């Protein structure tokens, strides 16, 4: 059970049950839709960007506990960051969930997002954890097409 508890840490279960910023966002000037063809999960991310800073962010959609919690924690983490800082955090997050199981975790750089470190033991779940991030990235780049994890 230990790997499984590592994957589904209490924070993740809690965020999946009551996700933060789970709503439409009025005044959003960036948004994108993300899609995971493997399971049919879908997420839309809305962002208000002003002067290169993420003033507000929200998401909607359906997904597993990992993808919902990841979207929830992501919105909490990047609110107030500059676009460049958010992209950098995405890079660190992606590196963590795809790293070797004995690689050091950059807990300081990841903050609360370190609760997703257990995902790296479950390669099929990496897409669940990164779907919201890929979608945020697409929203910030203002790509019109829905993005998928494939």
């Amino acid at each position, binding site marked *: *059970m230990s*790997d*499984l508890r590592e*994957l*589904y840490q209490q924070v993740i*279960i809690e965020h999946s049950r009551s996700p933060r910023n789970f709503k439409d966002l009025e005044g959003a000037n960036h948004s994108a839709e993300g899609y995971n063809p*493997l*399971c*049919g*999960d*879908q997420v839309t991310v809305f962002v208000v960007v002003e002067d290169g800073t993420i003033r507000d962010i929200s998401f909607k959609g*359906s*997904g*597993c*506990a*990992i993808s919902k919690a990841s979207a929830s924690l992501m919105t909490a983490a990047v609110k107030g960051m500059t676009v460049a800082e958010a992209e950098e955090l995405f890079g660190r997050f992606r590196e963590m969930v795809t790293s070797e199981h004995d690689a050091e975790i950059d807990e300081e750089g990841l903050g609360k997002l370190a609760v997703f470190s257990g995902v790296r033991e*479950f390669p099929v*779940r990496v897409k*669940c954890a990164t779907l919201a991030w890929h979608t945020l990235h697409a929203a910030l780049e203002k790509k019109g097409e829905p993005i998928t994890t494939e």
Partner: protein
Amino acid sequence: MRGKVNLDVAAIRRDFPILAQEVKGNRLVYLDNAASAQRPRAVLEALNRYYERDHANVHRGIHELSSRATRAYEGARETVARFIGAGDVGEVVFVRGTTEAINLVASAWGSYAIGEGDEILLTLLEHHSNIVPWQLLARRVGAQLKFVDIDDEGRLRMEQLEGLLTERTRLVAVTHVSNGLGTINPVGEIVTAARRVGARVLVDGAQAAPHLPLDVKALDCDFYAFSGHKMCGPTGIGVLWARRELLEEMDPYQGGGEMIELVELDRSTYKAPPHKYEAGTPNIADAVGLAAAIDYLTDIGLDRIGAHEHELVAYALERAASIPGFRAFGPGRGRAGVLSFELGDLHPHDVAQVLNDRGIAVRAGHHCNQPLMRRLGVTATTRASFYLYNDRDDVDALCDGLRAVIEFFS
């Protein structure tokens, strides 16, 4: 249906080496058979024997091994023909699987038989492999796709099917057994209705061939497709059965060696069916393996296998009824060994992940049934699918597992 289980499941399980293993410290409980089944030793040995003793290319060698390989390959075709009730062994074409069989028909038959303004009638129960090839064809020739809806139990609305058939309907393509819900469709009735407007009928038998006695002549359809790997055979081998007159008139699907009579610089003549549709060196070994799988299943009896699965699903429905939040999709009766369900508001991925930790293999997702999932109002389901080597202990493990899932996320 028989109420009594009369398969010796313990003996059957000993025939499947892969089942004798632990996953995460638990006995493996394999309930993902609708995606792919496992192989008995008889199939593994047939593959080995073929490669160790008999392999060479077919239909072209004078030497001993080539004639043995040819005998084995064509013998496998005869086994398949007997298994599905095809009167004519020349109507059995070996392909990679159901998907290739349907693509072959869409390409070799659809390209001349379906034109602008014609209609292809499908159903909401279709697997993506019986939707996408028709979308591609329809776009190419300007045809139209129509879909028959299901009722709340997951059965085809037959009165709607009748209403959707018009004089423009050229094809009805329908699954024999739904991979998402287990619904067994009334193929005979569908064929009768299609005949009234002169439409051809293609049956996707991927989920039927492993579980039901088959008789393509009695079904009276025009095309029947299935895969080896869902019926204890190897991956990469499957069958398209088609009426001889269609195989005669259709153009080849692929060109190459093995399928020709005479090749000139600007034209060629082709072999008679089925070889006309088997360009290149065929998948000889896996055809031999498929024949071994058919022999194995036939020895046990497809009617007994079907009854056994039916009994397991009934038992599972009964046991799971008291699990909080458990809701099964699909018909209550007259279904194959497929059990798709939801568990409260838990996502199927999370359910399957926790079950995996207990050594239980189920499928979570849309099962290549996105239109069906949309119709059911879900993005995904959890699916347990049974086969001849599953027993009540497996059902009990699943039900205990589902209670553990609820506990884990509470």
